[in-house]
């Protein structure tokens, strides 16, 4: 463990590991510095200019790109800083479509958080000429919507795609006031190389990238993704007996807080109307609904007619360890057969 560095932020003594940025050191110590483009999973870029601080003996600087140094004295709120930050925020908000109560990010929006801290008022905004907010919605993807009228150009999605997913499907396009986030050729995202992992949607600080048909869960449970062998940790949200959301377990040892399209958006099968809801028994050539008592006694009676050599059990690599243990115990002990295998070879 390397020695910790000691610095002072707003008169509070703060200790942090070498290499930590001032912003992260402050946030970990419970001192808020407004920020939009910084994300703990990503390399800092310092583009939103909201996390400005004063370090004694230096010019104002962005705290998200400045590593802590021994003995540093940092101020996060001075009249100069407040003024500069306010102007920077006004310009961001001016080009943002703020119909907050209808936004899927409402109350979890980083722009709301910063605006609340800075104390921006309606009249501050009225003196600015607003650019037209007329970019068409991109709802081509089945799982999320891109609304560039809400984008603050923090670049978190661009860095997520490059640094977390590793594909780089999106980037900044055009110049100046026309700058926007775009896929290659500026077409709909569904026609790009995007694989719908949703990592950018999970990290977007505003309402520019939000899940489609997002329903707020009434509670969440941590479990494991049911698809491939990665074993990603997922936090599944439910409401009224239905699954409505899925997100990654942060810092999970196998998945590191990431998911793919299936784990994040593919749990719709659980509440699909075609789920089997009662036992079925074939009568007159057709499968008809039956009670558990009927089905269990019929299966038991029929299986009892055969010797172990005439029976086989095929198990599932989808079921739990416990399900599978009971099944092989049943095959070997009760049915008297080692004819048991599963789909590992497929």
């Amino acid at each position, binding site marked *: 463990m390397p020695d910790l560095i000691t610095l002072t932020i707003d008169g509070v003594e703060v200790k942090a590991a070498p290499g930590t940025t001032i912003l992260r050191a402050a946030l970990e110590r419970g001192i808020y510095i407004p920020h939009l483009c910084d994300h703990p999973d990503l390399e800092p870029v310092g583009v939103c200019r909201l996390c400005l601080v004063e370090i004694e003996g230096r010019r104002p600087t962005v705290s998200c790109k400045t590593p802590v140094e021994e003995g540093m004295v940092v101020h996060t709120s001075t009249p100069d800083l407040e003024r500069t930050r306010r102007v920077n925020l006004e310009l961001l908000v001016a080009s943002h479509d703020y119909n907050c109560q209808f936004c899927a990010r409402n109350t979890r929006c980083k722009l709301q958080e910063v605006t609340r801290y800075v104390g921006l008022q309606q009249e501050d905004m009225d003196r600015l000429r607003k650019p037209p907010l007329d970019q068409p919605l991109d709802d081509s993807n089945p*799982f999320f919507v891109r609304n560039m009228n809400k984008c603050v150009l923090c670049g978190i999605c661009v860095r997520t795609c490059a640094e977390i997913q*590793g594909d780089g499907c999106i980037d900044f396009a055009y110049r100046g006031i026309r700058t926007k986030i775009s896929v290659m050729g500026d077409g709909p995202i569904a026609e790009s190389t995007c*694989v*719908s992992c949703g990592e950018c949607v999970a990290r977007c600080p505003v309402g520019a990238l939000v899940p489609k048909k997002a329903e707020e869960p009434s509670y969440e449970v941590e*479990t*494991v993704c*049911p*698809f*491939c*062998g*990665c*074993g990603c940790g997922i936090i*599944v949200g*439910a409401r009224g007996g*239905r699954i409505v959301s899925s997100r990654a377990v942060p810092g999970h040892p*196998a998945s590191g807080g990431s998911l793919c399209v*299936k784990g994040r*958006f*593919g*749990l*719709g*099968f659980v509440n699909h109307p*075609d*789920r*089997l809801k009662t036992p*079925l028994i074939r009568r007159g050539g057709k499968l008809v609904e039956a009670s*558990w008592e009927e089905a*269990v006694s019929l*299966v*038991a009676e*029929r*299986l*009892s*007619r055969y010797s172990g*050599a005439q*029976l*086989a059990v*095929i*198990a599932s*690599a*989808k*079921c*739990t360890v416990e*399900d*599978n*243990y*009971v*099944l*092989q115990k049943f095959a*070997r002990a*009760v049915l008297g057969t*080692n*004819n*048991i*295998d*599963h*789909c*590992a*070879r*497929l």
Partner: protein
Amino acid sequence: MAGLATALGSGAMTNTIAEIAGASCILAVGTSTTAGHPVIGYRVKEAVRKGARLIVVNPKEVDLCRHADLHLPLLPGSDLALLMGMARVILEEGLQDQEYIDRRCENFEAFKKSLKAFSPEFVARTTGLPWEKIAQAARIYATSKPATILYCMGITQHSHGTDNVLAISNLALLTGNLGRVSGGVNPLRGQNNVQGACDMGLLPNVFTGYQRVEDPAVREKFQRAWGYPLKGTPGLTHTEIFDAAHGGKIKAIYLVGENPLLTEANAGHVREALERLEFFVVQDIFLNETAALADVVLPAASFAEKEGTFVNTERRVQRVRQVIEPVGESRPDWWITCALAREMGGRGFDFQSPEEIFREITALTPSFAGLSYRRLERGGIQWPCPTADHPGTPILHREKFATPSGKGKLVPLSYRPPAETPDGRYPLVLTTERSIFHYHSTMTRHSPGLDDLRGEEELCLSPEDARRLGIVDGDLVEVVSRRGRVEVKARVTRACRPGVVSMSFHFAECPTNTLTSPARDPVAKIPETKVCAVRVSKISR
């Protein structure tokens, strides 16, 4: 599984997923990692961003190749020749870790002799690749340490899959990459709990924790614990079960959570086998194509409706937790099986909860002995975990191998061609693959949205083959093998090399596995779904 068990004594991923990001070289053989295991794909791409060299061995130019230093588009089924060729280069150029071989391996001389057959000319002809490219891959793999090998069904789904796996472990042993951080031999297991199903003895020859049914001491232990006499001869494997049903020897099957009509090779044969059964019971969450043939269908609860554990591909035992109540009258699989067992007079099936079952498992399974639900509360633990204070085992074979001698076995190998090779009537090779947007068939086809991203099957073929056959992108074509025929849309892509075409197998509308070959590996009994001779022609409407 069988291959790694022979050479190393344990058939599982030797290292953890997170370590992949720290490798200096990644050799990805027969895995389209970014599609089949997307989140492991993130770690591969992370390693490449940090400077790792990535070598992709795959007949098709899969997505992963975009990040690779070197792509070796070998002819399907020639993996063993390529891997032995690499071993030959390593020894000829003295790139092996001789100190490691002397200290930790056995059978080196015999192995060395078996390389004689793999002359540059033979390897180049067999793989369809220039020898120099194979030599280059060998040099990169042997000189960038630590180097990890990832492999998947592209290696195992062959009539000589076990030998392919041995060829992989040979390479890792020669270069001293086993038992070290970010090295290893890493089979990427397909299903969420395929590792756990193997660990639980859902195999014809072993009880839990790979304790062999032939071993009298093991049998005695289970007989005493369960209070039943137990058979000491291994049973039939998956594909043998269908053969025996087809031949009338197996009369009844209890099938849980699987859809072999779509996923098993030569699916037409499977359908016939199931239709000949006297009694067929299926337990599933959907009435899929296979369940529709059953005499009784039992509705199971999904993963979100029950408690339990899954074991992921890196041997991590993790807690699965109930989110919602079971849908309708569906019940957890363990509950259903216990009800059947009790109805048949079975003793020892009075479990009240999955945790109670887990306690019985840990009492009978040395590699799980130290685990408990309490210990698995956060993040899970990797087996082997023999005692309650053992932290689990992220990296296997650190000090010694799990073989009887404790040494890693270098295995001499000889090349066998795929069971089915192209000929005049069936001139193309079909190989199967997965789409990132689907898993096997049932669950993802019932998840709204995934079908919008990829809703139908396609046959990928090279521009050269397309031109020759008069096919353009989007044409409807028929694909015919010795066993079946399907109609599918053609996709012309440079990702395919001439002579090789590919399809996935997720779509009931176009059951790819009615085409594939049932030829099997003699040890692991895996069908050769990765190589099947077909002909393709345009359907004129």
